[in-house]
């Protein structure tokens, strides 16, 4: 890949970060990890990602809060976000709590279907 795209993986579970990171790197992407919303905000400043995969349920700053902050900020709102969550109920809450911000660009339920997430990532990073 001549100009590799950069993906920020936000999940509080180390094994899931390792998994997604390896999966994406095998496809030629560069990955950066954050274990919660607070760390993700820091990484956003330094790493300039092209796409974010975001877990909803996390300690410290939740995925919902991070999403709302990011999508309300002119500087970052164009970065596509894929929600990766284990509880569909979480996603429903996430959607209903979303006010004055657009819908997330992608949604992948856990356990992750590799082909599905890779296809969404590829489509969003064209």
């Amino acid at each position, binding site marked *: 890949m001549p100009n590799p795209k950069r993906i920020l993986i936000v999940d*509080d*579970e180390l*094994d*899931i970060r*390792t*998994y*997604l990171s*390896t*999966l994406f790197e*095998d496809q030629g992407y560069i990955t950066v990890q954050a*274990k*919660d919303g*607070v*760390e993700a905000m820091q990484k956003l400043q330094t790493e300039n990602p092209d796409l974010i995969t975001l*877990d*909803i*349920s*996390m*300690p*410290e700053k*939740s995925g919902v809060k991070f999403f709302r902050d990011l999508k309300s900020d002119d500087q970052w709102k164009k970065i596509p976000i894929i929600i990766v969550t*284990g*509880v569909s*109920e*979480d996603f429903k809450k996430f959607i209903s709590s979303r006010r004055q911000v657009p819908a997330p660009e992608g949604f992948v*339920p*856990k*356990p*992750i279907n*590799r082909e599905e997430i890779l296809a969404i990532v590829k489509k969003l990073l064209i």
Partner: protein
Amino acid sequence: MTENPYRNYFEMMPAYLTILDRDLRIVEANRRFRRDFGDFEGRYCYQVNRHRSERCETCPAERTFRDGQRHGIEEHFKNLSGQEVSLLVYTTPIRNDAGEITHVMKMATDITEIKLLQNQLRDSRERYRQLFEEVPCYISIQDSNLRILEANRRFREDFGDSLGKKCHQVYMHRTDPCVPCAVKQTFEDGQGHQSEEVVTSQRGEHVNVLVSTAPVRNAEGQIKSIIEMSTNITQIRQLQSQLASLGLVISSISHGIKGLLTSLDGGVYLVNTGLSKNDRKRFEQGWKMVERNITRIRRMVLDLLYYAKDRVPEWEQISALTVAEEVCEVMRGKAGELGIEFQCEFDREAGEFDADAKAVRSLLINLVENAMDACRVDSKKPNHQVRIGMKGYPDRIEFEVADNGIGMDQETRERSFGLFFSSKRGNGTGLGLFISNKIAQAHGGKMELESELNRGTRLMVKLPRKRPFPAGDAAKK
């Protein structure tokens, strides 16, 4: 000569009228008396009225002869048909021109019907009292200041002697009335009101009650007081909570399993791609992920089994030091992986205690895992420590697990032993501390928690040396 009109009145009076001489002989009687008691000529009062041969012990006529005053008494006469009638008897002196009492007039009013009604009223009151006392709910009568004027037996048993005290003092242990207050509302609009409250008994137990009020009115229709009936619905609420918990556990397990499967799938991906790329480091990393998540699945299943069934402890006498060292051994590796400093401080002379070794091990591992998780998610400190301690006392063994992780705020502390409460969001099933507490309780022991947000947490488990139930009762428990 015209007939004396008083004679007519005497005859027509709707009461029994008799004139007695000093010997208590009936010298005159009106029509009603003659109708119901028959011939009186030459007979004594006690013969006719009571069918007896001697004077009565208390005779109002005798007293009137003696003191010249009117006297009244309630008596029971037997009429011609042998039926006993209740009478209210009054005696009045009749004097001659010299003012001497020559006769006594005895007027007896039939109060049999009234007596019957009185008895019915007494029976009815008795039944009401019995119902009030024995009904299986809390009943109190309150005035407009919410003071308790009366309370039934169930109320007194659970809330103590509350007469004169205010409802909210007794039920809620506080000085301010409830908002809204069903009793006040009933005083205002005269209607019954319902509400659901959680009240506290004198033993400190929380009781869910369904409160209903109704006005108690006087003869003029004014509201005098309010009757408040509270039905204990604690068991219903507990059942509802258990059903809700069941829904939560399914949702929680489903979430947990999805996370574990994702991590397991990730491990498998790393193993497979490690093999195909001949990348040993990646293979080993993947394999560790697989092992770690299999352990987590096993733990989740064990926790669920403990939740699903009240497991009877498999009692044996075990060494406190051995069980503590086993836990230390198992958890040291994980602490190393997470970069957490792990300290074990054990009383080597603690001795033995009665316990289910597997359950106690599981309890302690749960606590150490929680402590490590609290460190893992804490990004505010450069170094983290988890310390496990054990000390023997004459009557008990105390275990302690302390960490300097994220700690808990007050709300988290208060809810931490509850079912399905997890401060770890997606990572916990919410069963860990609940199960640990349940194990401690099954051993007749208890758990105590001290925690401060951003400072860390200290959990103490106190287990008695002797099993709480005799051998025969253990199985029943």
